């Protein structure tokens, strides 16, 4: 089962896709989110989100600034002021 990942900025919905794993730079340390992660909310520090499309593949880095990550049963949503 893939993880549903959304990246949203005030300007637009940047990403909405199924991925394998996302590593988020949380304000208290990086954390990886896979499918089935426990509900969780964290502020994030300015840095890069690593999006792993497939297991073992090369991750894609997306720079984000000023944000918040929310994990629910529906997937991971990252709200960022700036991204790209």
């Amino acid at each position, binding site marked *: 089962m893939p993880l549903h990942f959304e990246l949203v900025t005030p300007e637009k919905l940047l990403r909405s896709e199924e991925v394998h794993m996302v590593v988020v730079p949380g304000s*208290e340390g990086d954390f990886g989110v896979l499918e089935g992660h426990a509900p969780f*909310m964290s502020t994030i520090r300015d840095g890069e989100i690593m999006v792993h499309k497939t297991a073992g593949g090369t991750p894609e880095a997306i720079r984000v600034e000023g944000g918040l990550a929310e994990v629910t*049963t529906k997937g991971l949503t990252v709200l960022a002021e700036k991204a790209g």
Partner: protein
Amino acid sequence: MASLKALKIRIGSVKSTQKITKAMKMVAAAKLRRAQEAAEAGRPYAERLEGVVARLAAKVGGADNAPLLLSGTGKDQVHLFVVATSDKGLAGAFNTNIARLARRRADELIAQGKTVKFYTIGRKGRGVLARLYRDQIVHSDEPGDLGKLTFESARAYADDIIARFQAGEFDVAHLFYATFKSVLTQEPTEQQILPVKVPAKAVGDDTDGGAVMEYEPDEESILADLLPRAIAIQIYRALRENAASEQGSKMTAMDNATRNAGDLIKRLQIEYNRSRQAAITTELVEIISGAEAL
């Protein structure tokens, strides 16, 4: 009756005015589409953020240590009116309507013995308000082209307003802008932005599919981080609505102007044809009577 030459010049000038208003209408239509798209694109973020704020505020809001931005100063003596308009005119009653709503609300509050201060974004709104409340305007800014406004500038306004709030300059802040309903109607709107109003829906549900949500660092810190952002997004949203409203209003105004110019041209053309005909008739009569005299 005006001379033929004068009429011709007049028709020419109305025609070129019509060309300009027609072009402005088409520009407004193109900009409107873009503004609407931008307003739509910003919706997912605003909705999600609102949801998170509502949930957190419901948890933390009741506590004594609730953030100042949420609980407010406990007074409502000094009100700050953030009046968002545009820098440019030629957009029908767009700017006037927003300023009029702000003025009406200000007069109501002043009648109740409250103090009202103004924070204007947009030159046109300032122009109207400065005539009546010159000394109460604490800050005014000219955002330029509303369609090109980024989230950063909204954030800058929000930060400035929050700093003033924390310095105790005012107790309640209201935001005035025009909601875009359709090309024909833009509704002047008032919205309270400070203290942050918690949306009534979705309150109290802290579980997600039976599991309890974990927070990192903790609810209070996340909320403190989020509130300024929530205010910024409200301002951003309002400015986006304004951008669409301005173009909608401009389009309608320019459409009317083009039609008026068309009517005017028609009337002038008839007058021109009549005078021309009259001149020809007179000439003919002259020639005929001249020939008869021979």
